[in-house]
């Protein structure tokens, strides 16, 4: 698509010189803007306007390499959380939210560079958090992935979706990557996905139980 075309820069007709049409000296408008920015000693490493990742990607990549192990662990962990459902309900989901969120944010932040979207789909994305994509794509890579598999926006970051595809191939239920995901509900940001999933699973379980007892009675 010409979406990815260089900027026309009128007034510099140099298409006859063999340089890319309308780009003086073969630079994009973006480069010109960047060059024109004020110089200072502090230069942030990456350019993504979303929250910057200020450390290396090694833990994230480790998690993707061990996606099968994490998948296994996650399902056990979800079961354990569901077993504790009476406890959560006893204390009150509203009251446990703060401490659970505190732990969840730090653990998932360390493991996956979690962005706390509140609707975790790690198990459908090969344990690669799609919210780390500068475009926050939840359904697959964009067309701008570099030939070396890195991100178009942040040239040093491996594309989240290239890694997601690799991770999903190791997983037992890796084909969950084929599901079309709904748009992110922005109103759930900074809430606990663990508690939400647990409460929903409990609701489903209770509904099934009442349906069963209703049928047997």
């Amino acid at each position, binding site marked *: 698509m010409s979406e990815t075309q260089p900027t026309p820069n009128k007034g510099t007709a140099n298409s006859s010189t063999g340089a*890319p049409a309308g780009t003086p000296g073969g630079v994009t408008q973006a480069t010109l803007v960047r060059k024109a920015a004020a110089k200072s000693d502090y230069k942030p490493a990456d350019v993504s*306007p979303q929250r910057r990742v200020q450390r290396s990607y090694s833990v994230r990549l480790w998690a993707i390499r061990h996606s099968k192990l994490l998948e296994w662990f996650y399902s056990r962990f979800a079961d354990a959380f569901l077993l504790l459902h009476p406890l959560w309900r006893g204390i009150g989901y509203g009251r446990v939210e703060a401490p659970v969120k505190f732990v969840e944010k730090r653990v998932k932040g360390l493991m996956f560079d979690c962005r706390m979207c509140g609707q975790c789909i790690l198990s459908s994305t090969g344990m690669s958090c799609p919210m780390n994509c500068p475009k926050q*794509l939840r359904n697959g890579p*964009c067309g701008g992935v570099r030939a070396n598999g890195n991100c*178009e926006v942040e040239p040093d970051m491996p594309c989240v979706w290239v890694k997601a595809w690799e991770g999903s191939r190791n997983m037992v239920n890796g084909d969950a990557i084929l599901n079309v995901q709904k748009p992110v509900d922005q109103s759930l940001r900074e809430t606990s996905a663990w508690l939400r999933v647990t409460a929903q699973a409990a609701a489903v379980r209770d509904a099934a139980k009442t349906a069963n007892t209703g049928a047997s009675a």
Partner: protein
Amino acid sequence: MTPPRPPQRDENPAGIHLPLERLPGHSSRGRLERVLRRGEFAVTTELNPPDSADPEDVYNRAKVFDGWVDAINAVDASGANCHMSSVGICALLTRMGYAPVMQIACRDKNRIAIQGDVLGGAAMGVANILCLTGDGVQAGDQPGAKPVFDLDSMSLLETVRIMRDNGKFLSGRKLTTPPQVFLGAAINPFAPPYDFRPIHLGKKIAAGAQFVQSQYCFDVPMFKTFMQKASDLGLTEKVFVLVGVGPLASAKTAKWIRSNVPGIHIPDSVIKRLEGAEDQKAEGKKLCIDIINEVKEIPGVSGVHVMAYRQEEYVAEIVDESGVLKGRQPWKRETRPDDARVAERLGHILHDDITETQVDMVKTAH
């Protein structure tokens, strides 16, 4: 008085500016869908959006495609560079009876704005919508802008499909008249993860894509492999694939694009061929025609999308010389019968060189 011209194939006999009837089994009232569903080889192109508020700029840029293309893409701030909006271009083009493909990029608008634009576009007579993610803002002329990316291309497709088929907004609120649109998506078979790309196409089809336009294809073998995989998955019967092609101005441009524009894959052989040529611009055009001739034979390819950025005047030549239309002439903008009649009756005012005074007029009246 000249006899009225015979109506063109995909034209409302009551007037060129009027929408067509929707055929059974079609989801839009547009010409592009008719052409594709008839099994004809479709040609689409892209209009370079003006940095201007003059409607004539749009009409002049559309005129060069007259009678050569089935639809014109109205791009939505391509490359994150600010231009006239795709909604604005569509408003102008539909007025004149052109068949635009309204591109919607998720970069600049949230779901509220997008659903509103879909309704507005459909109301103006836009029959084709292309759902894109959009380039990151860093690529454009205003890198400090806030990237929205509220939806992604997939959820955008699904949103418009829900609006069309279920007659509902994403929220579930009902629409009184759903938009009748032919839904498109973009594919890039030339970027990693290569194994995932055909599956990704399948996901887009599941989300609602009825036609897809690909990124520039310069590597035909790679595209063949992709199409083979897609047809093995049974995807090529479910979607019309339009292959993106375009002329390269020179070897230098090709090298520059390769290293600066993400997502465009240009193999070394192409650059070598351009470097070896005496007239690189002519060779670039010839290369484009050769690629069209190669890809049109690939099973599952339903058309080409010619992107001749800032070389739009070559589109007609490329389409003509490649012979993909096989003698067919796509819809061409012609004067409406009533306009023609007015021009005929009053044309003498413009063309005859008579200066009449009031006195003369009174004399002739007697």
